[in-house]
């Protein structure tokens, strides 16, 4: 029996979409919820929130949303690509090893086999792991909707999130793909994640640091944190501060102070604000120091 404050999702229509057009039409009136892997959505179905709308639109059989491909320098990951497929992709291992490396730290194999990249983004958890490396890659989210025909738009992933569980995605829209440029030679990127045990953990703090090391500096740096704010946080001021400057002790100290002003960790069931801030500092310090010898 469900606790009294919970009610099961009131679904009164089910659409098993077999094409992108069919999926978008079923979402067009804003009363549909797309169903992909289900590993986040099915957890919420009895929670009483309005995450699941009256029409459940299963998008798993939409061929257009599957597959990882490369055209020229641009890589496209379909919204339904699972975290396991990212981990196992030969194309990504070769072109962007950061993504398989992050996927390897994501939950468990069973969840990686279900969870999709589109879902990890749409669910908008401040602790979503796959989002950080994609922000570091300047990825764009491709979003589609239906207005008599397919209408597409793209948003930089870094601007996509507005709060915990909240995004710029409208109710009639569907994430269809993630796209980014293959990083140029010399691109360096690391993903760090802390949790209570080295397995199946929701990040207490996660960080992705990327850029191109060049004579003791880091050119065009990207510094992104997860689980230290209401959304994934990109530390733009810190990036600007360190760009092309020699990474000496004084710059690292300034970078840590600036970063601290850009994140806003909270106390919650998983960790304290103090602890999160300490881990964030440790990760940034450690990875900036590592850049010196690259």
């Amino acid at each position, binding site marked *: 029996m469900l606790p009294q404050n919970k009610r099961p999702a009131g*679904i009164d229509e*089910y659409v098993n979409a077999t094409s992108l057009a069919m999926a978008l039409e079923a979402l067009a009136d804003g009363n549909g919820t797309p169903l992909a892997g289900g590993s986040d959505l099915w957890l919420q179905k009895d929670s009483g929130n309005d995450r699941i709308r009256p029409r459940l639109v299963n998008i798993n059989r939409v061929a257009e949303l599957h597959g990882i491909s490369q055209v020229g320098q641009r890589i496209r990951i379909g919204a339904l690509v699972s975290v396991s497929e990212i981990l196992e992709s030969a194309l990504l291992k070769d072109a962007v090893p950061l993504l398989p490396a992050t996927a390897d730290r994501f939950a468990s*194999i*069973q969840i990686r086999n279900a969870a999709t990249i589109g879902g990890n983004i749409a669910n908008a958890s401040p602790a979503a792991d796959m989002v950080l490396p994609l922000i570091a890659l300047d990825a764009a989210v491709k979003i589609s909707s239906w207005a008599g025909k397919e209408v597409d738009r793209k948003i930089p992933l870094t601007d996509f999130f507005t709060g915990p569980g909240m995004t710029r995605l409208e109710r009639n829209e569907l994430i269809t793909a993630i796209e980014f440029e293959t990083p140029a030679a010399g691109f360096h990127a690391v993903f760090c994640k802390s949790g209570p045990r080295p*397995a*199946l953990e929701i990040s207490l703090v996660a960080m992705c640091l990327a850029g191109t090391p060049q004579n003791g500096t880091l050119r065009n740096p990207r510094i992104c944190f997860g689980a230290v704010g209401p959304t994934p946080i990109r530390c733009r001021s810190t990036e600007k501060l360190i760009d092309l400057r020699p990474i000496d002790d004084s710059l690292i100290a300034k970078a840590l102070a600036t970063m601290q002003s850009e994140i806003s960790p909270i106390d919650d069931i998983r960790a304290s604000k103090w602890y999160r801030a300490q881990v964030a500092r440790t990760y940034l310090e450690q990875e900036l120091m590592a850049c010196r010898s690259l």
Partner: protein
Amino acid sequence: MPLTVTVSFSLNGTKVTSAVDVTESALDLLRRNFDLAGAKLACGEGECGACTVIVDGRSRNSCLMPAPDIDGRTVLTVEGLWTEQGIDPVQQAFIDEGAVQCGFCTPGMIMQARYLIDRNPNMSEEQIARGIEGNICRCTGYKKIIAAVAAASEGSTS
């Protein structure tokens, strides 16, 4: 009244059809409609792996898989490991190594082990340990389970 839909899928090698409530999980469907009690409901949120089954060749938490999405898929549960030759080598290894105590996690653990061995029969101990990150055992500890998976892997390559 909850909305029901009809799903047809391959279950342990047999084509089956069933009506399901759209808000049910694949685990509910397997246990209630097909009396397959191997996969267990424990945490209900993907932490423990007691509900692990193999869907289209991928191990999944059946408690988090929406039942309507099972339509057209191929599902293997612990009950489907039985063949005319008897139980699966992974099951035999769990018996031989004493990797079972209360047995509640065992069907999920065995399905995950089967999945891991099918994908890589030459795992290191660390790879096995990482491979069962999503399966929790609260009584034997993991040493014997890891030994059983290692023994079953060896058997599959010899």
